[in-house]
């Protein structure tokens, strides 16, 4: 598992964990994120149970286990949060911020100690030791209850499955040629994203944000102008491809 510092500011830093060499072949590669603030830290989409030992081992290189105070799960999928039962043993005092819609489902992954903080559909905010992170609604992109995390100070949007690409485990971390990257994203967005209306609404809201880095849960980071290029490309893309005319 590689760890990369995406942002280091006065009060907090963003770390990305990705490209796990230990990952079983048939499991989709995922990107996990950690925001370390003063006295508080947020683990974003910590991943599946298969990933847990590597992920915990990687996180411990940056901070003590009891310094992780909060977890965020963008939605209910196993690659996002099936490790919950294990984190529950490691972080008994932590809070899990996740869509209200999925509480009864996510608890199936095992949650005896961690507190579930149900995010309302309109989103919410979380102070991580002096930095306020925004939980941005991304419903139906792809899950029916779904959020992204926006950091206005780092100008970073953790975009969940939006911007995801399916590619080999050793792919570069950052999109270097947007046009050639399209082929790695198209099928995923057409099939996994169900709603054109949801997509258009999300793009309208996200265009108003100042974003230097867009960080999806699979694939590569979008930096600088590639963020805008992605939004334009996504805007023009018809999604929900499993329904034929």
């Amino acid at each position: 598992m590689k760890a990369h510092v995406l942002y280091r500011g006065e009060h907090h830093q963003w770390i990305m964990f990705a490209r796990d060499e230990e990952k079983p072949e048939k499991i989709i590669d995922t990107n996990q994120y950690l925001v370390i603030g003063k006295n508080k830290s947020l683990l974003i989409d910590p991943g599946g149970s298969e990933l847990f030992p590597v992920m915990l081992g990687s996180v411990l290189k940056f901070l003590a286990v009891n310094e992780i105070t909060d977890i965020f799960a963008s939605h209910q999928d196993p690659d996002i949060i099936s490790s919950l039962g294990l984190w529950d043993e490691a972080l008994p005092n932590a809070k899990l911020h996740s869509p209200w819609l999925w509480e009864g489902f996510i608890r199936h992954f095992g949650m005896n100690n961690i507190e579930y903080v149900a995010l309302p559909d309109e989103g919410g905010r979380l102070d991580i030791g002096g930095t306020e992170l925004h939980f941005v609604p991304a419903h139906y992109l792809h899950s029916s209850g779904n959020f992204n995390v926006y950091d206005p100070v780092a100008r970073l949007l953790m975009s969940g499955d939006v911007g995801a690409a399916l590619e080999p485990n050793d792919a570069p971390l950052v999109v270097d040629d947007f046009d050639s990257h399209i082929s790695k994203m198209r099928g995923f967005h057409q099939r996994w994203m169900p709603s054109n209306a949801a997509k258009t609404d999300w793009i309208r809201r996200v265009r108003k944000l100042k974003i230097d880095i867009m960080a999806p849960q699979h694939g590569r980071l979008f930096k600088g102008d590639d963020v805008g290029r992605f939004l334009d490309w996504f805007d023009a893309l018809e999604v929900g491809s499993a329904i034929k005319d």
Partner: protein
Amino acid sequence: MNQSINIDVASNCIAAELYHAATLAKSLSLTAKNAQAITLRAGDNSLGFKAITVFINEFAETIIHQASKINDQAVSISRLSISHAHTMSTSKQFNRAWDFAGKESHREDLKEILLSLHERANQAQEKMRLMLQHLEFDLEESQMQMRAAGIIATTSKTEASRAGEYQESLFTIANNIETTSSKIRTHLKAASKFLSELKDTNS
């Protein structure tokens, strides 16, 4: 994990055998009650049979009670084995995290968690051992009662032959008691076999 799955399967098999035994015991209790009604009509000719039906009825009630108790024990063992499997698997994951973290990390934090998981696993193992002991004792007791019931069932045929005009009805009932008792014995024997497997798995 396989060990716990084996325990889970074996304890559920015991519960299933006892469920069948209890169902048969309920039918036996009903047969005994019918027999009591016949012996009332048969009067003095069936006094011996009447005493047997009282015993059979009490015995059937005991088997029903024991079956319910053993079933609860088997379900508890099954749950405990799953919980134990989860603890062992979690412990393995944290041990792997310890290795991945390496020396230059905060991995010392994990010691307390690993210790707690180890203690939990040991406690579950000890609890399971005690529960298996209780299960074995109750199952043996039921089997002993069934052996007595087998003898009584045979005696009931002799008593039925003295019941005059009611002889045929009481013969049918005596046969029913004998057959049902034998079936219950078969289920208890099967449960014992699963218990032996369970004990072997847990040793």
